[in-house]
């Protein structure tokens, strides 16, 4: 400070003589003389001109800048429009190509030779996340090749599409059958207004639908084309209510119904709680390792068997409220009656609930723990004693998945909006959204859980796979086909955990096609993301890890 004062004082000293000269000016005699007046005017004018010039210059500059900005924007707009147009043209081309191909295929499909066997015979009433109408269609494709026959005729475009595709693939890769019956993402049918650009939905991402990936494996072009066709079925599906949500509601009603029953039925009350806790405990005890879970699985089976025996006299109930599709009695089925003990259905529901909760709580922190739970689910739901009219009741579990992890079923949403979050299955506690760490943990666990359920190998089993791998493929495709603008971190997190630790199983089922699909998931999909969030980044890093640890070059 000491240094700064003197100069200031100095400047004052400079100023004062000046000021005194002004005073002198004013006081001087000729201050009203014309000459002086003129000279003052002159200098005022000069000053005025200077200011004006400066102002003009700045104004010019500003205008120039604005003009530049405008030009830039214009250019961008044009580019954007051009891109969109190109996209549209590409789409239309695909569409056209696909249609011709379709015709060709329709013409020749009868002469198809019986195709190679599926790795596992998927189950008939394959659960589909989509409303019943489509479902019959879905059912067919799961039965390997005859698909074409069954599906194509009655089917809305979707199935035709897949039917067509399969004919080409089958010859190439036996494993391909699991491609089964993916169908249009229900995304569009959601409450979502978000899905604004619905039509572009499928096309928008130039990487086609389930179909595309599918095709990509066999022949790139046709696959791409297929995707275009996929956009067709969409309008036809949307209005139907989401059956899974209905099932989920029915399960809630069932739970209340059981509590009421227990009030009147002492024997039931005495047993129900213990059975429920025993199942929860057993699910919690599951660990990795061959044969490690024999005891737990046996006790769960025994409890369900006990419930099926219905010693406690629980009221009978129609199981069809808990499945996607009505079923007719089938020959040779153990349970063809139109009702089952409600305690059995309730415990099956409790079992499903316990596994979902295990996925969320345990696999959320450590995804690798999902696998043994998946094994147990497959084991229980495929047990012939617990089939109803020849098919599993796994829809009970899938309805829960649909509620807690909608992105697996093609639902999308913007994480910044209320409705978007609701659609993504972002949980609320006490009316507040749970924190993002919690949400992402849940999604991690559920993604891993879904993979653990849907990537089960039944090739060496006499039982039918209650939820064959094509569902995995379909779920993956629904996420990967999200147009960049609608991508969410939730999807990335689910996708990542569906893949991590399951890449080997996936590749075993789908061979080269799986590798192409993985490339889409871990390279192309994150590359398209408009924002490089950590969730997106971790997909890419998973790609690196697979390369390093599994030698998988994508």
């Amino acid at each position, binding site marked *: 400070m000491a240094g700064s004062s003197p100069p200031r004082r100095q400047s004052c000293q400079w100023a004062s003589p000046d000021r005194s000269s002004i005073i002198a000016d004013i006081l001087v005699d000729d201050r009203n003389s014309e000459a002086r007046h003129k000279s003052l005017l002159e200098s005022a004018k000069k000053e005025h001109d200077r200011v004006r010039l400066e102002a003009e210059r700045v104004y010019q500059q500003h205008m120039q800048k604005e003009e530049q900005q405008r030009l830039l924007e214009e250019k961008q707009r044009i580019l954007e429009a051009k891109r969109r147009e190109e996209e549209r043209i590409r789409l239309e081309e695909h569409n056209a190509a696909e249609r011709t191909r379709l015709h060709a295929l329709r013409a020749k499909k009868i002469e198809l030779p019986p195709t190679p066997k599926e790795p596992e015979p998927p189950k008939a009433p394959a659960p589909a996340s989509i409303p019943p109408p489509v479902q019959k269609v879905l059912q067919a494709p799961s039965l390997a090749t005859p698909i074409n026959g069954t599906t194509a005729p009655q089917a809305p475009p979707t199935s035709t599409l897949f039917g067509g595709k399969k004919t080409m693939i089958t010859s190439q890769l036996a494993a391909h059958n699991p491609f089964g019956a993916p169908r249009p993402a229900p995304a569009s*049918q959601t409450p979502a207004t978000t899905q604004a650009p619905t039509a572009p939905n499928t096309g928008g991402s130039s990487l086609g639908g389930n179909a595309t990936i599918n095709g990509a494996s066999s022949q790139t072009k046709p696959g791409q084309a297929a995707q275009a066709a996929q956009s067709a079925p969409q309008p036809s599906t949307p209005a139907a209510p989401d059956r899974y949500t209905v099932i989920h509601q029915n399960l809630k009603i069932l739970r209340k119904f059981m509590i009421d029953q227990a009030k009147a039925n002492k024997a039931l009350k005495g047993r129900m*709680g213990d059975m429920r806790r025993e199942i929860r405990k057993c699910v919690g005890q599951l660990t990795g390792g061959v044969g490690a879970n024999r005891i737990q699985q046996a006790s769960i089976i025994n409890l369900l068997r006990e419930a099926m025996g219905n010693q406690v006299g629980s009221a009978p109930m129609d199981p069809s409220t808990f499945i996607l599709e009505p079923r007719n009695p089938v020959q040779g089925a153990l349970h063809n009656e139109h009702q089952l003990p409600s305690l059995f259905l309730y415990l099956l529901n409790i079992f499903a609930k316990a596994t979902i909760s295990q996925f969320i709580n345990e696999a959320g922190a450590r995804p690798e723990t999902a696998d043994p739970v998946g094994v147990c689910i497959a084991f229980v739901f495929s047990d012939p004693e617990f089939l109803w009219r020849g098919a599993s009741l796994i829809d009970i579990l899938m309805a829960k998945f649909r509620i807690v992890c909608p992105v697996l079923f093609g639902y999308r949403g913007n994480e910044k909006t209320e409705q978007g979050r609701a659609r993504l299955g972002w949980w609320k506690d006490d009316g507040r959204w749970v924190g993002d760490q919690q949400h992402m*943990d849940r999604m*991690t666990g559920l993604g891993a859980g879904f993979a653990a359920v849907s990537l089960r190998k039944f090739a060496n089993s006499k039982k039918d796979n209650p939820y064959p791998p094509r569902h995995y493929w379909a779920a993956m495709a629904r996420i990967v086909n999200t147009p960049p603008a609608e991508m969410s971190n939730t999807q990335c997190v689910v996708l990542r955990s569906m893949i991590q630790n399951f890449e080997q199983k996936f590749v075993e089922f789908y061979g080269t096609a799986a590798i192409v699909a993985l490339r889409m998931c871990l390279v192309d999909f994150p590359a398209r993301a408009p924002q490089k969030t950590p969730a997106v980044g971790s997909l890419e890093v998973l790609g690196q890890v697979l390369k390093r640890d599994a030698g998988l070059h994508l």
Partner: protein
Amino acid sequence: MADLASRITAPAGTPAPKVPSAAPEAPVDGPEETNLVDNTYEVEVKLSDLQNDQESPLYSVSSFDELGLPKAINDGLLAMNFKKPSKIQEKALPLMLSNPPHNMIAQSQSGTGKTAAFVLTVLSRVDLSQPTQPQALLLAPSRELARQIQMVVQTIGQFCEGLIVEAAIPGVISRETGVKSSVVVGTPGTVIDLIKRRQFDVSQLKVLVIDEADNMLDMQGLGEQCSRVKSLLPKTIQILLFSATFPANVMAFAEKFAPNANQMKLKQQELTVKGISQMYMDCPDEKQKYEILCKLYGLMTIGSSVIFVRTRDSATEIQRRMEADGHKVTALHGAYEGASRDALLDDFRSGRSKVLITTNVLARGIDVSSVAIVINYDIPMKGPGDREPDAETYLHRIGRTGRFGRVGVSISFVYDRKSFDALSNIARFYDIDLIQLDPNDWDVTEKKVQDVIKSSRAKADYAPNATSG
């Protein structure tokens, strides 16, 4: 780069969050509109809903990117599923990474990312072109913890080429070669031995980290050894002290140990993690504790669990009973040594066994993220004749669950006057509301547990802040 939270906050603090998101997401084609009720446009998430509570120890604005970490380290974090820094990481990292290096004393609740915070500092300070020259030393109170930290360094550093991390714990470092790594994680005794035998070149050490610092600097325990280690190191070394608890007497010593340190401290009432529901079970007598213990596993969804007991004998007995009930159990206590202890804990970490029964040896630091419940089968006591309740140990024990914002449950067993008094003492000390459970009607208890978990899940992301000072 905008991560999730910052993007959500983006609507620029305007207190008018109900603004419809700009584009009425309209141009949906016809049929879709049918089942839409009132969502012709979407409502932005309200700020208050986000639990973007600045007080939460998990809250942070910045992303790891913004911390300016090298890409290799950032990729390591992504591979570990770390999405954004926790509060201690966000606050402490810039201080620890700044140059010239500054000492640090940091306190943060259990499971809030302390380890990652100092590991990131260590990795950023290590010169990878000298892979065998020791440059960072990390000290921990137990062999398990040292190995755990070693694993964390390796995992976060998995993309750092040339990174070598060794554990200086008994029976690991080769007698012939000595320490040949850039990062050394060890227990004080072994480290002193290595330095004295001239098998550990400390001349180039840049960072010294002491984890569980209050325990390590306690003069009745490892304090003396730590001081000796420090006296053998370069005087310019950067010292970082970390713990969830810092009792006053230790704090004074810590400040001498790490002079002129930046500090992050917590108040006593802020120490408990809100996401952990703390309950206690009123057992009719000691004998029935076994049965009640087994029943607990049906009440809620449990991944892994840790049971703390007082004696080895009860550990063994509980193990027997629980195995009979179908559980896969590891019992780990002082009777095991060295490699067999490692193997037992690895069983638990890997999930081959899901129940860990242990004495106080493992109360601190051990991080198994899927631990859903901690059971204090015996209330922790200290002092001669176990007369005094041990509040710190209680806190560290229950901190084995509720890791990084997850939900966790702790249930403490009381069965007589003494255990009841001890527990209420601890509850008063931290100002905790302990919820009582009743072993007589399991339907009721189940409902109660579920409700408690639900309500604390809502709080899981919330906990008071560390006041940086």
